[in-house]
């Protein structure tokens, strides 16, 4: 097969086939286009202001390493005027985080950025190893997820930084959209699609500049730029549900690569239907500044699981999908129905009944933010999730000591 030439420069050999549009690009053009697209996301959503101090949530993995590298490049190229700092969380998992933290330390030197590490042990008095020793492997991701969320905020506060960027990519967002869809949690689905989270009350805002970047391209960017990243799996068992969603996304990508960004955009469109929740997305679609969604309580965990899905489970899902396809003819044309209802003069946004979570007890359409009475951290309940979990853990520890 004759080597294909780059569709952009038409001189170099194409090495990359882009999942979003099948464009064949050479290494240099791919790197340039990848960076330009992140720059576009940043400027069109007005993510930063000149002189802003920004913490990069850094795990040493591919996503945060690429984020740090790209932000450094763009900050210098386009004069963002950002003061970038790496912020790492030490969950206290021997043989996992201690190794990846070494990568982050090297990154700090490579990118000439200061590094701050905050540990679960210093913040909560518990390492994840101790948590797992107490509660077992089942459900430990919940603890880790809740603790990490707060730990990033607290680390940022220690550094007097009000903005944390994370390496969440398009595949991660698609995965979360799918999970919330499958759980029937439209309120959380809406929040998870937003590029910026944290409302005006919260002291630290979060954003995901790689929200529209394919995981595949992130890995290829890291490969072609020879970035130093760490890849291993958390030694504690990953969440089965997230794993299944991830496996499904990857299988869909194989047959239809555009599916990932399509799911992200579907999520954004669905978010617009949720009353009181702000749509996200780029300013080129009309909005001046990316609206902030309330902080996403991604209790689900770290979003860094490999889908260790047994093949038969995926095969079952695949079969289901094929059956659904066969039933396609039975579906109602939603687009048509909606445009008809618009023509009949209904309001722009209709109040749809929203279910939140999986039961009546959690059926709160919108979260009201307050502060935790125990630790003062922002929380929609009297006692924040982290303090609730800690209370349970500390009771267990007391029992063990007796």
């Amino acid at each position, binding site marked *: *097969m004759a*080597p*294909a030439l780059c569709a952009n420069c038409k001189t170099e*050999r*194409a*090495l*990359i*086939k882009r999942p979003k549009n099948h464009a*064949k690009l050479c*290494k240099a053009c791919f790197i340039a286009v990848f960076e330009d697209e992140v720059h576009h996301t940043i400027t069109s959503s007005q993510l930063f202001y000149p002189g802003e101090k920004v913490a990069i949530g850094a*795990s*040493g*993995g*591919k*996503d*945060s*390493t690429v984020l740090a590298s790209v932000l450094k490049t763009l900050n210098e190229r386009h004069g963002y005027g950002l003061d970038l700092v790496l912020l790492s969380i030490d969950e206290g998992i021997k043989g996992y985080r201690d190794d*990846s933290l070494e990568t982050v330390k090297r990154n700090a030197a490579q990118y000439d950025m200061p590094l701050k590490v905050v540990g679960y042990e210093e913040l909560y008095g518990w390492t994840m190893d101790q948590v797992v020793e107490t509660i077992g492997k089942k459900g430990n991701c919940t603890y880790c997820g809740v603790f990490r969320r707060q730990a990033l905020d607290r680390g940022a506060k220690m550094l007097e930084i009000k903005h944390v960027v994370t390496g969440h990519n398009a*595949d991660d967002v698609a995965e979360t959209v799918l999970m919330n869809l499958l759980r029937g949690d439209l309120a959380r689905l809406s929040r998870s699609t937003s590029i910026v989270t944290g409302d005006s009350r919260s002291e630290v805002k979060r954003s995901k500049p790689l929200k529209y970047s394919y*995981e*595949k391209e*992130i*890995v*290829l960017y890291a*490969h*072609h730029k020879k970035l130093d*990243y*760490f*890849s*291993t*799996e*958390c030694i504690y068992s990953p969440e089965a549900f997230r794993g299944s969603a*991830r*496996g499904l996304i*990857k*299988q869909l*990508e*194989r047959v239809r690569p555009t599916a990932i960004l399509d799911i992200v955009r579907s999520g954004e469109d669905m978010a617009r239907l949720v009353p009181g929740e702000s749509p996200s997305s780029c300013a080129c679609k009309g909005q001046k500044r990316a609206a902030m969604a309330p902080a996403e309580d991604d209790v689900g965990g*770290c*979003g*860094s*699981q*490999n*889908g*260790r899905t*047994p*093949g038969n489970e*995926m*095969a079952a899902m695949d079969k289901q999908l094929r059956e659904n396809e066969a039933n396609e003819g039975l579906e109602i044309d939603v687009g048509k129905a909606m445009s008809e209802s618009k023509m009949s003069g209904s309001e722009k946004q209709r109040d749809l009944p929203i279910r939140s979570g999986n039961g009546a007890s959690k059926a709160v359409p919108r979260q009201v933010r307050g502060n935790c009475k125990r630790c003062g951290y922002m929380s929609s309940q009297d006692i924040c999730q982290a303090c609730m979990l800690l209370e349970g853990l500390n009771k267990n520890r007391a029992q063990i000591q007796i």
Partner: protein
Amino acid sequence: MSAATEAAAIPITVDFSGGLEMLFDNQRRHSVSLPAVDASGKPATIAFLIDHLCRTLMKDPRAELFVLDNHIRPGILVLINDADWELEGEEAYEIQPRDNILFVSTLHGG
């Protein structure tokens, strides 16, 4: 294996990264001498290489982390001499002497 097929082995390098190295003795780069033809006498392709790696090189019993339903697991990228295998014919690509084949997983977090 007959002397003829042994003589007709293709020398290549195979790299594993993104977490896949753990399935292959925690080693990133392997020099592989690949039989030039498969059992039915057809030239060695990527599909044949994948099967060959599972049979001869993988040290870990969790083959499903590398191969699902006889194909490379979705989420694992294959680069042939640094080019996306989608540009080279994927599984049907016929392996040439001194090729470098990289398998990189996108599935592992940090």
